[in-house]
């Protein structure tokens, strides 16, 4: 009976049987990428073993070699060369800035930020081969974040790394390709952390890998599993596309967690949480989405951007953080639109919920209050209902954002205006409405 069900063709699967979907899509896409992942994990395991048992010098060398090996798996030769040039330029600038800083005692770390951003912008808009650039943009982003954080740390009293150590940090095999960003101190910790419970570590690694394959198949095969012709609704199809993009992000995030764990990084519970899919799929507010989307990146933005700008004012700090974030993404038009929209939306949501919390004396803030002194707690069902409504609005917003991100990197994709116009700009109207409410 089961095998009959598996082999019979279903209209909702586009005339394919579950077995066909498994074989043609899930299996094919997993098998397509599996060898690369296996090699990546092996390189990282070797890296971890060597860094645990050998000296300082060998550790950095191993990191460099491992980083090259990982890059060779997916990145073309010319892109690797380009990346190395970028790293060299970054180092030279950092060195000069540091010298100036030591001599004249002026803050020079912003030069590094500026340099990285200008370089990324140039690549985004001037680089002749856009396909190549889209392939290697992730690498450059991670490296730019590392350089920026390194500059700030340097001026707060770290020793200046030699080119050798610098290269080791930049090319660390655990995060050179898919991230996440790690700080220079974290990078060095890998050597220290050999005392760990091996069993939970193995378990978590396998768990994370399975999750990443699960999200890969969700991302790739969802378009087969729910064919638009069966459920002919633009909202469902838009949600599907947005969901597919988010799944792709979860795939990359869990994969990078796996490489981090294999590379010997992780907290005391043998985890290295990068994303929290549940908080994103069932969000209470856009702010929680932004935080849970990429936790290391969030930490980076908070520490090196938000807190740095905070002295100019709260609103400016938020705006500046989103601006820097979108600049780091190369100011790709879609990504910039998404980030600006998120910024505006979360601002509106923040204002509204703050106002509601104050006027009804209820726990309705965007982030749950630490010690709730309000009259109505989060356990109140009415509060729950209101939060549910906000969650629904957020999910609707995520559709709008995900639709844009779905086709980043495809040159012939429809424009932002067309995509949002297809969905009648609904989410924008809702936000406008909410914004007006805040003034009442």
């Amino acid at each position, binding site marked *: 009976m089961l095998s009959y069900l598996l082999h019979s063709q279903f209209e909702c699967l586009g005339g394919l049987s579950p077995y066909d979907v498994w074989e043609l899509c899930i299996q094919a896409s997993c098998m*397509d990428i599996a060898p690369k992942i296996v090699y990546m994990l092996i390189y990282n395991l070797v890296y971890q073993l060597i860094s645990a048992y050998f000296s300082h010098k060998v550790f950095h060398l191993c990191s460099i070699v491992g980083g090259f090996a990982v890059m060779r798996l997916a990145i073309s030769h010319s892109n690797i060369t380009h990346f190395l040039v970028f790293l060299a330029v970054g180092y030279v600038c950092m060195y000069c800035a540091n010298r100036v800083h030591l001599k004249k005692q002026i803050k020079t770390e912003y030069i590094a930020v500026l340099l990285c951003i200008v370089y990324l912008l140039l690549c985004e808009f001037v680089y002749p081969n856009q396909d190549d650039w889209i392939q290697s943009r992730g690498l450059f982003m991670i490296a730019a974040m590392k350089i920026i954080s390194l500059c700030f740390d340097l001026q707060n009293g770290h020793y200046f790394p030699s080119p050798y150590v610098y290269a080791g940090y930049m090319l660390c095999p655990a995060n050179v390709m898919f991230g996440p960003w790690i700080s220079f101190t974290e990078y060095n910790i890998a050597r220290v952390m050999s005392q760990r419970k091996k069993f939970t570590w193995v378990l978590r690694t396998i768990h994370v890998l399975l999750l990443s394959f699960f999200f890969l198949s969700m991302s790739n095969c969802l378009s087969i599993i729910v064919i638009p012709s069966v459920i002919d609704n633009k909202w469902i199809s838009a949600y599907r596309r947005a969901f*597919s993009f988010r799944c792709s992000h979860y795939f990359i995030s869990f994969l990078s967690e796996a490489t981090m764990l294999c590379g010997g990084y992780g907290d005391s519970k043998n985890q290295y949480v990068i994303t929290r899919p549940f908080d994103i799929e069932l969000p209470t507010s856009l702010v929680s989405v932004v935080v849970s989307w990429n936790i290391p990146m969030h930490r980076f933005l908070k520490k090196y951007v938000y807190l740095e700008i905070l002295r100019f004012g709260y609103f400016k700090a938020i705006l500046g953080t989103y601006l820097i974030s979108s600049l780091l993404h190369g100011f790709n038009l879609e990504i910039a639109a998404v980030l600006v929209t998120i910024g505006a939306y979360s601002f509106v949501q923040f204002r509204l919920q703050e106002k509601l919390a104050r006027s009804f004396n209820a726990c309705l803030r965007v982030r749950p209050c630490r010690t709730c002194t309000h009259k109505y707690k989060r356990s109140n069902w009415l509060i729950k209902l209101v939060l549910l409504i906000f969650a629904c609005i957020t999910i609707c917003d995520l559709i709008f954002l995900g639709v844009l991100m779905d086709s980043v*990197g495809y040159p012939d994709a429809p424009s932002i205006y067309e995509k949002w116009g297809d969905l009648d700009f609904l989410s924008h109207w809702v936000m406008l409405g909410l914004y007006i409410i805040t003034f009442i």
Partner: protein
Amino acid sequence: MKITVVTVVVLLMGCISVEYVDSRSKGRGKGSMWWGIAKAGEPNNLSPLSPGVLYMDSSVHGTLRKKQRRLARENPGVLVAVAKGANQAIHECQYQFRNRRWNCSTRNFLRGKNLFGKIVDRGCRETAFIYAITSAAVTHAVARACSEGAIETCNCDYSHHKSRPRVSGNSAVAGVRDWEWGGCSDNIRFGFKFSREFVDTGERNRNLREKMNLHNNEAGRMHVQSQMRQECKCHGMSGSCTVKTCWMRLPPFRVIGDTLKDRFDGASRVMVSNVGNAHSNNAHNNKYNKSNNINSNSIHNRREGKGRKQKYGFQLKPYNPEHKPPGPKDLVYYEPSPGFCDRNPKLGIQGTHGRQCNDTSIGVDGCDLLCCGRGYRTQVVDVVERCNCTFHWCCEVKCDVCRTKKTVHTCL
């Protein structure tokens, strides 16, 4: 008026008898014997684990030509796929023609006789469809078996596909080339080439019938080929494309059956062309021949000597000079179809006596047309069938047994 009718009939009869005699020797082309493989063994026996078993089966052995046997020997596991494909073709043909006067019935297979009956001896539309669908099914089944890893000679090496050199002219068929390397896009190419080798054995492009067979076989393959696509998706940090994953989108065979049926309805009648083989203006064939000369690293080219490279490079001439010449995906025939109304043992036609029909339909499956105006008998029968089926998690389906009265119309 009467005289012309008579002459036409006489001419037709002559044509039939000539063809009939011809078929004994070489008329219909010899490539059709392998269809028998469909009945050679039950699918249970054709386990992919023991490809040798099928090969040893003497009834299979008898249906295959020497070259086909060699191909089966050289590609272990492929025979299972071919058998699967042949069965699929019969199935699909009978599905597509379930409401037609000719319903693609197959005969009990006996060695030396044809699976689809003597209709194949004639170069009519139905024959064109049979050739196209069988060749398409083999392509489809072999390509699928490849991706399952059931055929050793076409397993794709996932780890090396990136570094494999991409030869720009290395596409026998338009469309394949546009694929990015990712998963196993080699499969369809293997299926295509294998089908050419296997199915087209014995058709040597010597007479119109063989040309027709070759063309229709090729058309069937082209349809599979063009329906198959590879889809890719990028993954990476924030929308970058650090890694790309690809998967196949092989259409269900039903889709191919549907398109071939459409082509059947619009098939073109052709006649012997004096233009000759080499100077064809058919874009597809020309392209193929060119790429044939450029590279010689594919199975197909290696085995095909220089003298035979023109096998597919011909252009058929439309019977009606005002019509367009048939394209590579069109089905071609050169004889009108016989009437399928009455039993005709000479042509192996069963007739529509006793077939069920639909009294409310005005289409081909309606009683008027299907019964060829002979009228029909209406009966009320008790039907016992399963009903009210519910699905219980997991995985059981429970049904009730229902007795219903059904009105059945059968042709007289």
